[in-house]
């Protein structure tokens, strides 16, 4: 185990043994990771990722499948050890981690699940009862208290999961895809819970595949294949888009396809050099495609960040190939 990993597990053990406050100062402390790498055998799941989790703020971690979002959250929660880098957490007792499948007991009722968690974290029964009532009431779960979790719908289960990890007022909350597969009404409830926890001073990190949700976050971390491709506030990420983005009014050409993506009924094209197909272009095809350049939103910005990374990787690959060939000659 690396030094960081050791420090982390030591922190876990201390937290397990010691008191509620986990030995950290309340408030101003900032949690997260610094140049964190996680290796599963030969696979590098996370490559020098830096995550900031600030009290009172929501950080969204976005990225495609296999980007490393879950690994990042699991690592911060202590479920996975770091191979390199640093993790700062307030200690096990002060972390609330909600996995994507919520991890609630399907054969226990809503109430029983919450009671178990409250006891496990040593929350006063009276205080827990009050909080449970408030949260269940607010999220429309109050009528389902006696229901077994396996009888709940996906959205209800997610809400229960979020309530469960909020019970002990953790300083750092980690939600893995809390809103995936949830209807818009339940999503609003979930966001209320999450935003409420942030307002109470918790530092929140949530992974999501919905970029409209990420726009609501204070800051966003974009991962692709285990690497950080963009980070900052949504505005900063949008402002940092290199080149230009334009809307095409026809299908992209073969050579453009790698740089184009579909949004609703339209196609969008990223032009790294800032030169979009223009109405006065040389070829009729280009003239036919011409459309106004647009102001990108976060979804465009994230897509471009990932494309830019792929472009870099491809260039590096060509470069190293060329060097290798040169070497042989």
């Amino acid at each position, binding site marked *: *185990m690396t030094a960081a*990993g050791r420090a*982390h*597990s030591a922190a*876990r*053990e201390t*937290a*397990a*043994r010691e008191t509620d406050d986990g030995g950290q100062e309340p408030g101003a402390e900032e949690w997260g990771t610094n140049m964190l790498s*996680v*290796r*599963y*055998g*030969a*696979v590098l*799941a996370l490559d020098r990722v830096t995550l900031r989790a600030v009290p009172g703020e929501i950080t969204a971690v976005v990225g495609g499948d*296999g980007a*490393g979002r*879950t*690994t990042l959250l*699991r690592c911060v*929660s*202590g*479920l*996975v*050890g770091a*191979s390199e880098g640093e993790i700062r957490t307030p200690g*096990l*007792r002060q*972390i609330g*981690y909600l*996995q*994507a*499948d*919520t*991890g*609630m*007991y*399907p054969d226990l009722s809503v109430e029983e699940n919450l009671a178990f*968690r409250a006891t*496990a*974290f*040593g929350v006063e029964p009276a205080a827990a009862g009050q909080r449970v009532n408030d949260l269940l009431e607010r999220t429309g779960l109050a009528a389902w208290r006696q229901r077994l979790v396996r009888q709940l719908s996906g959205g209800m289960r997610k809400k229960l999961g979020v309530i469960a990890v909020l019970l002990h007022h953790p300083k750092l909350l980690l939600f893995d895809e809390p809103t995936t597969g949830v209807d818009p009404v339940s999503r609003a409830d979930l966001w209320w819970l999450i935003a409420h926890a942030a307002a109470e001073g918790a530092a929140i990190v949530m992974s999501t595949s919905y970029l409209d949700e990420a726009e609501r976050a204070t800051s966003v971390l974009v991962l692709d294949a285990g690497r950080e491709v963009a980070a900052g506030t949504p505005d900063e990420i949008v402002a940092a888009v290199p080149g230009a983005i334009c809307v095409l009014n026809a299908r992209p050409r073969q050579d453009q396809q790698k740089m184009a993506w579909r949004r609703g009924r339209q196609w969008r094209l990223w032009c790294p050099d800032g030169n979009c197909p223009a109405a006065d272009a040389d070829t009729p095809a280009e003239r036919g495609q011409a459309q106004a350049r647009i102001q990108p939103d976060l979804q465009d910005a994230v897509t471009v960040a990932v494309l830019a990374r792929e472009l870099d990787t491809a260039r590096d690959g060509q470069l190293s190939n060329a060097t290798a060939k040169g070497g042989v000659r």
Partner: protein
Amino acid sequence: MWALIVKEFRQMRRDRRTLALMIVMPIVLLVVLGYAASFDVHSIPTVVAGPQARPVTPQLHKPLDVTRIEPAKGLAWALSELRDGKAVVAIVTGAPRPAVLVDGTQLFAARTALTALSSFSRSSSGTSAAAPGQSPPLPAAVHILYNPELKTSDIMIPGIPGIVLVFVGTVITSLGVVRERETGTLEQLAVMPFRPRDVFFGKIVPYFAVATADLAIVIAVGVAIFGVPFRGSMGVFALGALLFLFATLGMGVLISSVSENQGQAVQLAMMTMLPQVLLSGLIFPLSSIVAGVRWIAYFLPLTYFTQISRGVMLRAEPITALWQPFVYLAVLGTVVLFLATLRFRSYLSPAPHARMPRRRMGSDSDAAETALAGSRDRK
């Protein structure tokens, strides 16, 4: 249909453990059971006591196997030899007619002994007129001890709690733990402020309680309905049951920590349960099992629990006579529990490497497996 068949074989190939079980298990079972399944007793440990012990001994032949001759000792010694399970037949000479004592708890050995003894008596009465100075003809009075009617229930029921405890301890416990993994709740346990030890004992204590209640019920029913005697000390029995439970519960946790799902856990649990039932001496006498297979019995906790439970319930054996099964059971329990806690700890602890200790001492192929496991983790 063809597509379905191909798919089924693909899935089967993925689940190597089931495949191995399907192919290897029948062969192993056949071989083991073929050698183990025998009620025939070829050798019956016999002790001879009393002043005429030496002259009597030459008349005893197979299957009676004279292990000790003590002319200076008498009935009390012979009884203690039987009680402590050191012999199945004891012949006490001295009175006008020798007395033959048979341990009725060794059902098959006792039956074989009785057959042998009756054939001796026929042959000796055939050549009746014993010359003066010759030893008296055998046998005279045969006493079957502990289980005078040679009832099967008397010897089976003390063994049944063992099977019940194996079932609850191994099968149910392994299911209970692996279910946490399957439903993803184990991950939540791992991020709660519990130490691995808390989780371990938190998981097994309820099963321990249920198994204890089961045990009490089975014993009570055996005594009340089947009239099985409980002659020995409750304390000695309880201690034996405690050690046995630790071993079986530990086995349950061990099985669950190497199983991905409940199906695999049940398979493995069954694999440990079947030999326990068949090879522990509960059904087939240990001495009848071929030596090449019998050694397996010495690694099975049920073997020792059966000895303790029969000894205490039927023969009122004191703990001093049962020290051997107690020691073996304690050693087995400690080893199993130690391995189980070790596995369980790595099951719950952070660090990808520590979480997969089976693959920790990695060769290249191990690394590939770890990578696979990793990508599974990442979803």
